[in-house]
């Protein structure tokens, strides 16, 4: 019995993209309206689907559908979602209409500090068409249950993003776009080798993920294949030391594209680790846990310290994300129920929080044309509304309790600290060291706030206009989600929990946190 939900979710934006691309020249406004409408339809469909989702036992992947694609190689168009994939698809579906609304004028060129405009290389409607293509691929990559299909989406997603950065970005866009593309292609190449290796070694004649779980038994083989997947995902996430493409890409991309890049595309890396690295190669995952935790902790602290020293708002936010991805990776590999739930939740919450921060910073930058912090000051007095949203987004970035990012960060840290998986010592130390980021985060966010929003109003800032209605509609939903899930994370956790339980049982770690700690109740 095949469910049509997921194929429909992918087809709708593709059809929308074709319509937008075929619109006659000069109908930019119509293109934006159609894109917004299509993305809202996708959001509505996603929500209807999500409310039908239950984490009830039975088939692991709900709304599953499988069609033959390349029968001679056993390649399927196989889709289906568990709780983790579902919340990430929902994240994408929520962010796209917001990004469309936020990017209303972005595709017409980026304003530079001296007042000139960096003209885009391609037309406005192409930008929005690419956005919809990207949405279809983001849904596809999280929905794929066929590893080859996952790989195809993983690579194909690069193309729309490459053009969105390279054709519509700031002054150094082609430098950033090529850097982004090459890094990702290299990772993808390693993954392709590993995917083929997995297919050959498994000898099952299929790429379907559920059929490949637990098949590879030989530890050495597991390790080599694991490494292929992991490096691809580490570049994507990105993890220290393969992170240097992200600040460039995020800084040069238009704000909306940066949101999707950091908010969703990068999550494919951490999602991939959780789904594929762990479940396909459990022994290797356990063997590599310690070096990976070390890299994650380095990312957390290093990303935060480098963020403090940034002079460019968008680069600063990009580095904070490197710190946050460190938390997600630590949560994934801590091998405890609480930490892994925290990591999955972190992926969603980080999308909202960093999305809001990029967009608020983007609105500020659009008014001045400069991403440099030193060009601002005292914006609070002139644009109180923008300043308020910027502050709340910033507070979400420093994981203020009461905001959603706190719940996930807290779960990751406490789950790592208490994980009995690998002899508690090392993970305990990792959790304590990572908690230092709590202090560093306050420094990088509040120092940026102090230099941009507070103090005497800088001369060019005096002419700023506060947020218009469109911009309020961009930020208000994100802030509502950030506060709402900060106090009521349960709706998300309820779907994530069973998925994490299945993951951990495939890694043969039997919910250590619940089994041992729950007994104390």
């Amino acid at each position, binding site marked *: 019995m095949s469910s049509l939900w997921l194929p429909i979710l992918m087809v709708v934006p593709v059809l929308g993209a074709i319509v937008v691309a075929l619109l006659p020249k000069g109908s930019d406004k119509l293109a934006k309206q159609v894109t917004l409408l299509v993305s809202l339809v996708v959001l509505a469909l996603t929500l209807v689907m999500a409310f039908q989702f239950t984490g009830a036992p039975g088939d692991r992947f709900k709304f599953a559908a499988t069609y033959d694609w390349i029968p001679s190689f056993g390649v399927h168009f196989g889709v289906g979602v568990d709780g983790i994939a579902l919340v990430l698809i929902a994240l994408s579906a929520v962010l796209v209409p917001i990004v469309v609304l936020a990017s209303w004028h972005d595709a017409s060129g980026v304003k530079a500090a001296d007042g000139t405009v960096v003209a885009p290389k391609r037309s406005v409607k192409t930008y929005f068409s690419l956005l919809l293509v990207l949405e279809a691929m983001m849904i596809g990559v999280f929905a794929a249950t066929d590893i080859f299909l996952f790989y195809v989406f993983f690579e194909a997603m690069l193309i729309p993003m490459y053009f969105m950065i390279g054709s519509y970005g700031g002054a150094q866009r082609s*430098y950033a776009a090529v850097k982004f593309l090459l890094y990702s292609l290299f990772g993808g190449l390693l993954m392709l080798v590993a995917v083929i290796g997995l297919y050959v070694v498994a000898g099952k004649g299929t790429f379907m993920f559920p059929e490949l779980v637990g098949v590879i038994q030989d530890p050495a083989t597991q390790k080599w294949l694991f490494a292929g997947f992991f490096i691809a995902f580490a570049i994507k996430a990105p993890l220290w030391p*393969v992170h240097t493409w992200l600040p460039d890409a995020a800084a040069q991309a238009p704000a909306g594209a940066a949101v999707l890049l950091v908010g969703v595309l990068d999550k494919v890396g951490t999602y991939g680790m959780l789904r594929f690295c762990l479940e396909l190669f459990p022994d290797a995952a356990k063997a590599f846990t310690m070096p990976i935790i070390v890299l994650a902790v380095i990312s957390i602290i290093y990303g935060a310290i480098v963020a403090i020293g940034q002079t460019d708002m968008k680069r600063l936010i990009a580095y904070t994300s490197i710190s946050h991805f460190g938390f997600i990776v630590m949560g994934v590999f801590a091998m405890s129920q609480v930490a892994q739930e925290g990591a999955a939740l972190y992926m969603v919450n980080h999308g909202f929080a960093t999305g809001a921060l990029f967009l608020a910073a983007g609105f500020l930058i659009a008014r001045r044309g400069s991403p440099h912090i030193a060009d601002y000051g005292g914006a609070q007095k002139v644009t109180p509304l923008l300043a308020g949203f910027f502050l709340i987004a910033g507070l979400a970035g420093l994981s203020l309790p009461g905001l959603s990012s706190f719940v996930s960060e807290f779960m990751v840290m406490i789950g790592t600290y208490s994980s009995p998986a690998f002899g508690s010592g090392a993970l305990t130390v990792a959790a*304590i060291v990572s908690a230092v980021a709590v*202090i560093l985060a306050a420094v990088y966010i509040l120092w940026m706030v102090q230099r941009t929003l507070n103090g005497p109003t800088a001369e060019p800032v005096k002419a700023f206009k506060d947020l218009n209605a469109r911009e309020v509609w961009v930020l208000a939903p994100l802030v509502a989600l950030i506060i709402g899930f900060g106090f009521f994370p349960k709706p998300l956790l309820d779907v994530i929990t069973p998925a994490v339980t299945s993951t951990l049982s495939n890694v043969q770690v039997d919910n250590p946190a619940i089994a041992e700690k729950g007994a104390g109740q």
Partner: protein
Amino acid sequence: MSWLMIALPLLGAFILLVFNRFTNRWGHLLGVVMSLASFAVAVLAFVELLGLGEDQRRQAVTLYEFIPSMKLNMGLLVDPLSISFALLITGVGSLIHIYSIGYMSHDPDRRRFFSYLNLFVAAMLLLVLSDNYVGLFIGWEGVGLASYLLIGFWQFKPSAAVAAKKAFVVNRVGDFGLLVGMFVIWTSFGSLAFKDLGAEQIGTASNGTLTAIGLLLLLGACGKSAQLPLQSWLLDAMEGPTPVSALIHAATMVTAGVYLVVRSGVFFEASDVASLVVTIVGVATLLAGAIIGCAKDDIKKGLAGSTMSQIGYMMLGAGLGPAGYAFAIAHLIAHGFFKADMFLGAGSVMHGMNDEVDMRKYGGLRKYMPVTFATFIVGYLAIIGFPFLSGFYTKDGIIETAMEHGAWMGWLAVLGAGITGFYMSRMIFMTFFGEKRWDKDAHPHESPSVMTVPLILLSIGSIVLGYFLIMDNRLMHFLAPAVGMPEHVPVPHLFSTTTVGLSTLALVAVGAAIAWMKYGRAQVPAVQPRGSFLTTFARRDLYGDALNESLFMRPGQWLTRIAVYFDNRGIDGLVNGLAAGIGGSSGRLRRLQTGFARTYALSILIGAALLTGALLLVGNI
């Protein structure tokens, strides 16, 4: 119903923030009404609690599931300890709301001010009413946020913006302790709810674990309560409007650390080391704060030093186990009244003196602001421990209990009382007595009644509360269901004639007399004299900031610079350099424009090699 206490001010803050300018005309009134309504609910809850038998005075309400896999629920706990705080927060909070109508009447952003005040009250109530550490922590950071917003309320002043950030960052150092403390508690006992963390449940843990928990929680308490070594933010926090200093940085938020220690009493009672460190921190801070208070010419900073010092007393009491808890909380409540009274009094003085804060430019004000003067004097007598006023009973209780635990801490606390007598008398003489040293355009006048009535009410509290709470061990018996009773129940006297009590009074008198000779009888120089080494030491806040700057800030800045350099030049630069070497191309610009495909291919390769190396090293493929 107890959730209404939190929900009402939260709703107030929400309405004022979301409806923004539309609420400008009546926003302050809504803020006051919400705070008063919350106070009314607190009184109802208090009466309800009194109607119950002693063994039932722990009313827990589970509101909803928060993190199911951690079995963590959001819930509230109304017990004698939390309701005492709730009454203080909403009661004193409401008076300060009312006062602020007058104090902020000329500020164009008055509505925003009230929204933050309401947010603060809601967060502070969440902090004390939560039945678990995570809820407490959400409130804890909520009050930190409100404090940040209100210190930086006049954020266009760079000094205010810097002070706000500093307060938040220093507090986060404490939060690190509280966070890790929660990790240890959850890992050791499988729960973060207070009801699961009784003396029997934690009895299984090792001494080391309990000490670690105690010290980590104490670090959190030090941040919020401005205790050594995390005291440096409080003096700068005086950049905020004066009602904020009264409410947040004197009466309520800064006492949250004391609340945390008392609420977590089981851990401290189980670890001698942890409780000893609490008393050491308390004694060190009560002396440090008092010494700082002696040297300040800024009336608000003088009071801030005094707040540090008084919280030091509370912390000392909280470190003494059940015998000290009741005195610590009694002193906390009394201090909430008399310090709020004096801060608001200082605000009233500033209101009439063009916002001047330098006491060297005051003098002789008693005739011009009689109500402010009278209420300030009451607060003054209460804090120095003048017989029969609040501080006399509450501070003396702490000192006597400390004496039983160790003579050294008792006598140091007595010494602190003597210094208090000096610096508070100094403040009185410099402000209200002596000659006018005003600026030319100063026209001091009494404040409107919307400001003086709260002052009068607070000073009434400053007079009677100590007697009321201490006599018959009233507060001790009331708190017993929450924190337990001491083995030896003290016998309170109307006028204690012990050596300790009498020497305290004598030292206070000596301190006041010295202050009179230096600042009452002698003329106060309008310009700050150079002062001795000791004076400079006190003026510079005992070099706390200098220490932080050289130990943390500058090394931190260096580390940041190095890390940024390494990130730009190190990882990417290594690759760029190699590419140049291999390709033989020259010129940085040309390389960036033409060679980057090759460069980055190499950069990825090196990164991947590093990763593989790391994996190989430990995982031995």
